[in-house]
């Protein structure tokens, strides 16, 4: 079958969404389909928010099937359109109150939000099948657009390389160093714990995190190596005591699944969204209130009882070990 995978392009950004697009395209190709990835740039400010949806709407797509992944690629028109939704434009929905959203409470913003909601309802209603990547996204779609969808989980990147290893003396957090990922919480938690922390990844907060670590005298237990290779990341997972991941209302969160595949428990926060679909307090990890005190205590508790940490990690591994791309491909193309 000729399949076009459709995804938005935020120029100069490469994160989880881009990895998913690439991995889905590869999985469809591996299943014998003639598959290509189509991307159109998107702008997220409300004054330009409808430009890219209109471009998708008028772009010819000649294929047997199109699979649209995120805003605004699902505006593509095709009689056989399947949507596997990563996210909508969150700034107009669940994150409308966030600092970074420009959808305020003025009349213009509210009318743009209303129009976007209507456009989304129409474009998403056209789908012959409507999936999402997580229960969090499914719930948002129901709450904001009144549309029913089905959650379709997929394995994270490096799934075939991650494996359990010894329990070391550090907590690991592979993440972009940006506000919505809240890496600062880990730095603050170190002041209430005796463990080390390794936070990999790049972002605008790198310098600020280093300075804060110095200010509260935990810089000797914090490593910020920046970008690390896949091989190094696999090794860091394998040798960690635990993984800590406390983003703000995450859509899905590869880090959690990668941690479990490496047999590590996950320390998270009660407001971390999709992470909580996997982390069950005391079963596969520890769910804190996100405070430095509770997170620090969680680190120490795991360090003090590594057998318990191993049991949590193994329970997590059992939850995700069956995830595979074959099931995803079958669901999207059948």
């Amino acid at each position, binding site marked *: 079958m000729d399949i076009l995978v459709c995804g938005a392009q935020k120029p100069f950004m490469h994160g989880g969404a881009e990895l998913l697009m690439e991995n889905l395209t590869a999985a469809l190709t591996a299943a014998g389909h003639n598959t290509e990835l189509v991307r159109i740039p998107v702008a997220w400010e409300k004054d330009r928010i409808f430009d890219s949806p209109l471009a998708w709407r*008028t772009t010819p797509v000649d294929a047997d099937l199109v699979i649209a992944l995120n805003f605004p690629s699902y505006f593509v028109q095709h009689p056989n359109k399947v949507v596997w939704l990563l996210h909508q434009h969150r700034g107009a929905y669940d994150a*409308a109150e966030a600092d970074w959203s420009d959808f305020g409470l003025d009349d213009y913003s509210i009318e743009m939000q209303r*129009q976007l909601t209507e456009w989304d309802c129409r474009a998403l209603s056209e789908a012959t099948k409507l999936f999402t990547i997580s229960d969090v996204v499914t*719930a948002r779609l129901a709450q904001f657009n009144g549309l029913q969808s089905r959650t379709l989980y997929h394995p994270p990147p490096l799934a075939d390389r991650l494996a359990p290893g010894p329990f070391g003396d550090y907590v690991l957090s592979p993440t972009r160093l940006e506000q919505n990922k809240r890496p600062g919480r880990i730095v603050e938690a170190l002041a209430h714990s005796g463990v080390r922390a390794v936070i990999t990844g790049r972002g605008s907060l790198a310098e600020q995190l280093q300075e804060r670590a110095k200010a509260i005298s935990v810089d000797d237990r914090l490593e910020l190596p920046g970008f690390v290779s896949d091989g190094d990341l696999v090794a860091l997972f394998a040798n960690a005591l635990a993984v800590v991941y406390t983003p703000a209302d995450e859509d899905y969160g590869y880090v959690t699944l990668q941690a479990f595949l490496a047999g590590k428990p996950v320390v998270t926060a009660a407001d971390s969204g999709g992470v909580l679909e996997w982390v069950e307090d005391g079963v596969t990890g520890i769910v804190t209130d996100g405070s430095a005190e509770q997170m620090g205590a969680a680190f120490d508790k795991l360090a003090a009882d590594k057998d318990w940490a191993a049991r949590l990690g193994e329970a997590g591994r059992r939850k995700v070990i069956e995830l595979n791309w074959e099931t995803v491909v079958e669901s999207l193309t059948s």
Partner: protein
Amino acid sequence: MIPTGRVVLGLSVGGPRPAELDHLIYAIGRQSVVVNMDGYTGRVDWMLVFRSPFRIPDGAPAAWYLANRADIEQVRRPSLILSGDQALLDACETTAPKVLITPSTVRYDDARPYAPYPRQRIRRARGLPSAVVGEVGAQRCVWDGHVVDPKFADTILITASAVISDQASVLLALGCGAPTVTDPATAEAIGARHDEHVRVGSDHQERQRLAAELADDMAAAARLSWAGRTLFEQVHSMPHLVARIENAITKPAGPAARISRVLAALGTPDDAPIRARAARLYNLPRSAGSAQTIGES
């Protein structure tokens, strides 16, 4: 003299016309030029044919209207089949698209669907309660338990978390995307089903209870909001019926008409900034009143 850019509908209509066909012709005439083909030899963009007394110009796409089974036998080279009776559409053997003429009694062109979240944001912006039940009826309007002037009916319909409507207001409520509670007779009259398009309560007390529940359940309210709006467009709205027919039978002439149609199909209001942006981005004409109008000038 037919203005440039206006769509021209030619009529080849004979015999006593069914009322629904008259309503349809009248509605089409609000935005297109309608000409009777008796002696007319000018340009036509498409034809509406009922018992075909006049010649159909070569190349003009033709929509054939069926009022009974005998009409099926008269159909020749249809581009579209129309009928108020689904059984007649089913009986007509053709590959042409078929459009069911629904009751389509209302013209609420300005009714924009407000999902529950934009409603909530409007209330926040205005300093109103976070959840409010409204009531819009022939006898009275109620906002958050207080009887208010009927001039606030429209405001209630687009800002309340849930609305109790009667027969006089229910279609406008659905057009506005209001999560709606109504009585059994009204629901039956508009073809709305309980918990699919509206919630139905047998007495006022029950309707108030159902509305209060909806006001606290955004997912259920959002589902009813969109399903109710869809019912409004598919069954009760004359402009949407006309658009379905025109989209099925005519192809947009040129990029401006194509983008105009795309924007209209997404529900884009005439004053939406994207219309002006599209005109600029795609360097398209913006002749007001034209069928190819993209944006405000």
